[in-house]
């Protein structure tokens, strides 16, 4: 099967009434472009979200509508070619974080994020995925983690974290209430996060555990757009949870993983509904709000302005918008200031959707980050708080790249630091 | 051997009517056949239309009695939908109806009928001074000087001398049946011309309330024009003054010209008080409702049926009576789903063309078969005469004071008994009598309207049932109108907001109907039987009787013998029918 045919198959499969009705609703007004940080940063019209889903639309019209079929037969409508797929692969994987900001400005309310995901499904089926991303996917299939976090590496790192920060990390505890699944980014790059979360949960007296089977929450199949791989990675987590008999699964500071597990898994793997799935931000809000943990008020005041970066997958698409703010108002009532725009209207970091994993995408990624720099500078913040390790990766990398003097910090870490024992 | 006279065209009301008559060896008519030769299918066209629009279609049935079908139509729709119209609207409608009578009858008398009796060329030997004396004796009408009549005489003379008689050419001038002295001829010719000019001022009520004439506009539920004394585009004092002035002119003309002329001419033609009776059966649907269209007890002209001249036993006919009110098509070019012998009430009536006559051009109709586009309406399977005579008889029998007085006055003046009214002359006199009654009624109605406006009763439209959503799914209505020519009825059936049947039974279908399933002739057919013709080539007698019905037509009569050969080259006396 040619790549094009495989892509078409996937497009056809993706195009239910849900997708079709939204494609039909589009008036091609181009407003979505104005919301896209990649278009804003580069001015490249091809980065308009409506254009990024062009192949999905073309496939739909040519496959499923009489007018489209006629136009194709008459040669008015172009058939999709392998070159097209390659081109749109670049557009979608290099310059789209599937942040869904575009759907916020669409006058028709089209949920572009889901259409963009449909595009990735087709491109993935055609094998038109950037090599860097595929390497990571394959690594996750083979080794269980895209960042090379094999069983033994995981073992050593957790051991080390427990020792280093003197926290107890319960492992593979049968009958625990809560399974906490970290992402390899945290394990490998932000180990403090693991220590912080362990500290908090222990302080709250939570009966929790980590699982050696469900050790990786990152889901590169979801970035890739492959349903098959996504399901594979999700099932590893769910199986781990099942084995331990936990009631809920807490996803730590990883955005897309949360999106996949919380908002999609149940539609592919019904057993996902056996568990309550929640993001650590929600847990933090719950613990602070109910008083199960107490924080030192104003612990972070006096160290320059602090601002909060809303992640697309956790805030805009995850709904954990209020909790970080409630916590920050305790931790830094004086120095916490909001960026504009914020909350569900927030501007994406530019590194999500697997973009940061693609080397070739670096220039646009950094370009997009400049928007963020402007935002942060406007509010005059020196510390940027966030709840997504992928955002954090993009921030730390870009702070380096642009030689900024910002402090980038995860919310859990702040909470842990301010805990009143 | 009987001769067959073919008289074609005689129009229906305004269009095309044909009469074929058999004449015996003594030149007396033994049988007559009346045939309508033009059909438009208005009843067919009306099917499926909006009932509120129907009046406009129906109105175009006739441009002469131009309001009558509109009235019958809006009343039938209002009856079906149970719409009551405001008081002022009813008064305005009555004004319009009364104006129609006066205008129509004056024109009929002078321009359609008078020249049956008046010899235009006969006036050339008149003495203008003597004519002026006669004028002064019979009426205070101002145009009564010798000089005036001299002018008229000179004008006629100039036309005759020119050899170009124009519309007066080739008539029966000099026929022995013309019996008027020259002075009366001159008087009548002068008034012929005056009436032609005066009638133009008789239409103002229609023009003001309906926007134009012919074919003024109407509306179901009232009248279109509002009353507002403070508006420049509603009925206000200026419009009312024009109306009052027009009414005064009409009454003056009727009082000072029409009635005196009738009384001056009639004594010379008393033989026609015994000719042309016809059926002796009369029907009226009644006219001039007080406020409620359906309350016949308050009508000025009662709703009545008179059988065999019996004025003592007058019945009120029920137009909804399926057994009595029926139309027959046994001799009409239609077919019915229930067979052509059966009679159908108009609500069940059918209009389906079935032409079985000879292919044109033809010489004679097959009168034993179907021979007319007119149906044959019958009341209790009896043919009826409708028109002024029927109305005057109804009012007279009911004791309407003014009618009784006027009738007695005319009979006294002619020295004739009451039975004389059942005749050609009786019809013509009845027309004049009711014109006077209705002209005076118009003034009374005008005063009532002024009173109503003073009392604040200025509503002219009831819009409660205007929207089709307020209508019942099925409704049947009857609308009446005493047209100048006689009883007119429209029967409508409305289903789901659309007309599903519409049948018009018009005066001329009564009077001019062909034979029915029992072979009974219609009024025209019956009235001609027994009429002796002094000279079949110059059948003035036929015209006098036919025109006394006011069929509103000008006829060029083709006379053909039984073999289809031309009998003569006859110019009939009926001329200058401006109407």
């Amino acid at each position: 099967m040619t790549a094009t045919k495989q892509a078409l198959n996937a497009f056809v499969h993706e195009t239910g009434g849900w997708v079709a009705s939204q494609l039909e609703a589009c008036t091609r007004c181009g407003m979505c472009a104005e919301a896209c940080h990649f278009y804003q940063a580069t001015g490249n019209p091809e980065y308009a979200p409506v254009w990024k889903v062009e192949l999905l639309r073309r496939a739909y019209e040519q496959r499923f509508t009489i007018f489209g079929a006629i136009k194709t037969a008459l040669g008015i409508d172009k058939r999709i070619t392998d070159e097209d797929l390659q081109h749109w692969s670049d557009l979608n994987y290099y310059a789209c974080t599937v942040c869904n900001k575009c759907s916020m400005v669409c006058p028709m309310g089209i949920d572009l994020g889901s259409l963009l995901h449909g595009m990735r499904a087709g491109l993935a089926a055609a094998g038109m995925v950037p090599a860097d991303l595929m390497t990571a996917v394959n690594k996750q299939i083979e080794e269980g983690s895209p960042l090379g976090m094999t069983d033994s590496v995981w073992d050593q790192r957790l051991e080390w974290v427990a020792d280093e920060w003197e926290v107890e990390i319960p492992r593979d505890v049968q009958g625990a209430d809560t399974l906490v699944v970290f992402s390899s980014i945290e394990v490998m790059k932000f180990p403090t996060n693991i220590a912080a979360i362990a500290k908090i949960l222990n302080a709250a007296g939570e009966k929790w555990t980590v699982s050696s089977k469900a050790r990786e929450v990152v889901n590169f199949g979801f970035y890739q757009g492959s349903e098959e791989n996504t399901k594979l990675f999700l099932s590893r987590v769910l199986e781990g949870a099942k084995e331990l008999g936990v009631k809920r699964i807490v996803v730590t500071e990883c955005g897309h993983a949360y999106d996949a597990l919380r908002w999609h898994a149940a539609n592919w793997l019904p057993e996902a509904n056996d568990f309550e799935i929640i993001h650590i931000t929600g847990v933090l809000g719950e613990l602070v709000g109910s008083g199960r943990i107490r924080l030192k008020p104003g612990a972070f005041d006096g160290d320059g302005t602090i601002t909060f970066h809303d992640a697309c997958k956790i805030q805009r698409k995850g709904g954990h918008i209020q909790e970080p703010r409630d916590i920050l108002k305790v931790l830094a009532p004086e120095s916490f200031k909001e960026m504009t725009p914020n909350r569900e209207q927030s501007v994406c970091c530019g590194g999500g959707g697997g973009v940061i994993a693609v080397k070739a995408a670096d220039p646009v990624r950094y370009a997009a980050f400049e928007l963020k720099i402007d935002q942060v500078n406007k509010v005059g913040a020196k510390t940027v708080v966030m709840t997504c390790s992928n955002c954090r990766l993009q921030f730390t990398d870009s702070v380096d790249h642009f030689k900024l003097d910002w402090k980038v910090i995860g919310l859990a870490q702040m909470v842990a630091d301010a805990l009143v024992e | 051997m009987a001769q067959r006279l073919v008289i074609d065209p005689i129009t229906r009301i305004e269009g095309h009517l044909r009469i074929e008559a058999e004449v015996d060896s003594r030149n007396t008519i033994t049988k007559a056949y009346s045939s309508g030769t033009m059909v438009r299918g208005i009843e067919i066209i009306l099917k499926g239309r909006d009932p509120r629009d129907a009046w406009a279609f129906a109105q175009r049935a006739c441009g002469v009695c131009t309001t009558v079908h509109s009235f019958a139509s809006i009343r039938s729709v209002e009856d079906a939908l149970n719409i009551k119209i405001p008081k002022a609207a009813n008064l305005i409608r009555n004004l319009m109806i009364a104006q129609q009578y006066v205008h129509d009858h004056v024109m009929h008398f002078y321009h359609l009928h008078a020249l049956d009796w008046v010899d235009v060329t006969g006036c050339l030997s008149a003495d203008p001074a003597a004519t002026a004396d006669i004028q002064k004796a019979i009426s205070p009408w101002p145009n009564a000087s010798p000089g005036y009549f001299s002018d008229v005489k000179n004008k006629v003379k100039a036309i005759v001398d020119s050899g170009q008689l124009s519309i007066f050419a080739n008539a029966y001038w000099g026929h022995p049946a013309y019996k008027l002295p020259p002075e009366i001829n001159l008087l009548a010719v002068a008034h012929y011309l005056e009436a032609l000019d005066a009638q133009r001022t008789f239409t103002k009520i229609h023009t003001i309330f309906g926007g134009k004439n012919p074919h003024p506009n109407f509306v179901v539920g009232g009248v279109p024009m509002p009353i507002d004394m403070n508006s420049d585009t509603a009925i206000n004092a200026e419009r009312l003054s024009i109306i009052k002035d027009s009414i005064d002119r009409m009454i003056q003309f009727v009082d000072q010209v029409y009635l005196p002329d009738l009384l001056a001419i009639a004594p010379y033609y008393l033989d026609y008080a015994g000719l042309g009776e016809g059926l002796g059966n009369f029907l009226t649907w009644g006219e001039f409702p007080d406020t409620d269209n359906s309350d016949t007890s308050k009508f000025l002209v009662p709703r009545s049926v008179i059988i065999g001249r019996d004025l003592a036993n007058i019945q009120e006919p029920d137009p909804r009576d399926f057994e009595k009110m029926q139309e027959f098509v046994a001799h009409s070019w239609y077919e019915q789903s229930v067979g052509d012998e059966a009679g159908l009430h108009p609500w069940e009536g059918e209009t389906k063309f079935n032409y079985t006559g000879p292919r044109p051009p033809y010489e004679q109709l097959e009168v034993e078969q179907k021979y007319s586009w007119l149906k044959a309406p019958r009341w209790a399977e009896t043919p009826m005469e409708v028109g002024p005579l029927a109305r005057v008889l109804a009012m007279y029998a009911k004791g309407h004071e003014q009618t009784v007085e006027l009738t007695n006055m005319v009979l006294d003046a002619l020295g004739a008994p009451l039975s004389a009214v059942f005749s050609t002359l009786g019809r013509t006199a009845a027309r004049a009598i009711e014109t006077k009654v209705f002209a005076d009624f118009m003034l009374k109605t005008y005063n009532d309207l002024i009173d109503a406006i003073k009392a604040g009763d200025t509503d002219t439209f009831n819009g409660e049932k205007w929207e089709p959503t307020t209508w019942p799914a099925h409704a049947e209505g009857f609308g009446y109108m005493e047209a100048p020519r006689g009883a007119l009825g429209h029967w409508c059936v409305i289903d789901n907001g659309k007309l599903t049947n519409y049948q018009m039974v018009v005066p001329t279908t009564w009077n001019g109907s062909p034979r029915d399933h029992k072979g009974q002739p219609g009024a025209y057919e019956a009235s001609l039987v027994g009429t002796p013709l002094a000279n079949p080539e110059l059948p003035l007698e036929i015209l006098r009787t036919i025109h006394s019905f006011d069929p509103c037509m000008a006829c060029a009569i083709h006379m053909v013998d039984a073999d289809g050969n031309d009998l003569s080259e006859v110019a009939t006396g009926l001329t200058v029918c401006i109407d």
Partner: protein
Amino acid sequence: MPEETIAEGLKKSGVSRRDFLKLSGLLAAAMGLTNVPPVSASGLPPRLGRGYSVNRVIAKALETRPRLPVIWLEFQDCAGCSEAITRSNSPTLVNLVLNTLTIEYHETLSAAAGFQVEQAKQDAMQRYAGQYILVVEGSIPVADDGVYCTVGGRTALDLLQEAAAGAAAIIATGNCASFGGLPKAKPNPTDAKGVWELITDKPVVNIPGCPAIPEATTGTIAHFAIFGTLPELDGLHRPMPFYGVTVHDRCLRRPFYEAGKFALSFDDEGAKKGYCLYKLGCKGPTTYNACASIRWDTGLSFPVQSGHPCLGCSQPDFWDGGGFYQGQSAPLDRPELAAIGAAAAAGAALGVGATLVNQAKKKAKGGE
């Protein structure tokens, strides 16, 4: 024998020179020669009248032309147009008939009748071949060999074609003769037609209206009598002086239309204040006629002035031009619920068919 001129004819019938010039002025006014003010009829010595020069032209024309022969035929009519002519104000019928025209045949006007009037018509058609005006009133039914209208046993079409052959021009008065009128209204039971559909080798002037405005008919005839030509015609063969603008254009309620003030019902406040009748179904905007300028009955009123929406009676097929109380903008046919339902069902059926195909494609993974 030389033809008698109109002037001579007038003289014989006792019309003075002054009256004659007066008549000329009226004719001019009737023909829409609007630069002739009514003062020309005021009785001033002609040279003092402002319309003097134009009057002279017309007077000259009347003096030098013989009287215009006219043959008038009636078919599927209601006599309303003939009736209207009797109400003509300028010129009046009496003037026309006695002074300007020689009406050779008219079923309701001719003194002569029967064989003689038929003979008179034949004579006139021969004597004035190529010169007479043929006026037609009423439509002509052509279905079933014309049995739906016969005169003297001959069909309307037969009579029309005979009379049209020698006519200099044909004037169709009223909507029936012009465009088929009421008889042609759906379902047109007798297949009625207007004259111009049947006579195509002669100039046919249409004077539509129901009835035609009398001054439009008399004015057009007078134009031909005076100038020997027909007035300029529009695309529907209507003379421009009377059909150049719409009723709406000259309507006294027009300013309220512009201001968006409408009567919503008969006898409501708007109706009393003289607001526009558009919402009540007025067809004025698409109706070309002189109702709003010449008006009726010596300028007394016209339908819209009298509170009733214009029916559009000078337009072709106005009987089927939507309900008389339906807005001008409303569609002519309202699809029945059944038709809408059928369309929806057809769409749904096609949609279901396409869906089956689409589902099959989805199952087959929809490859090329």
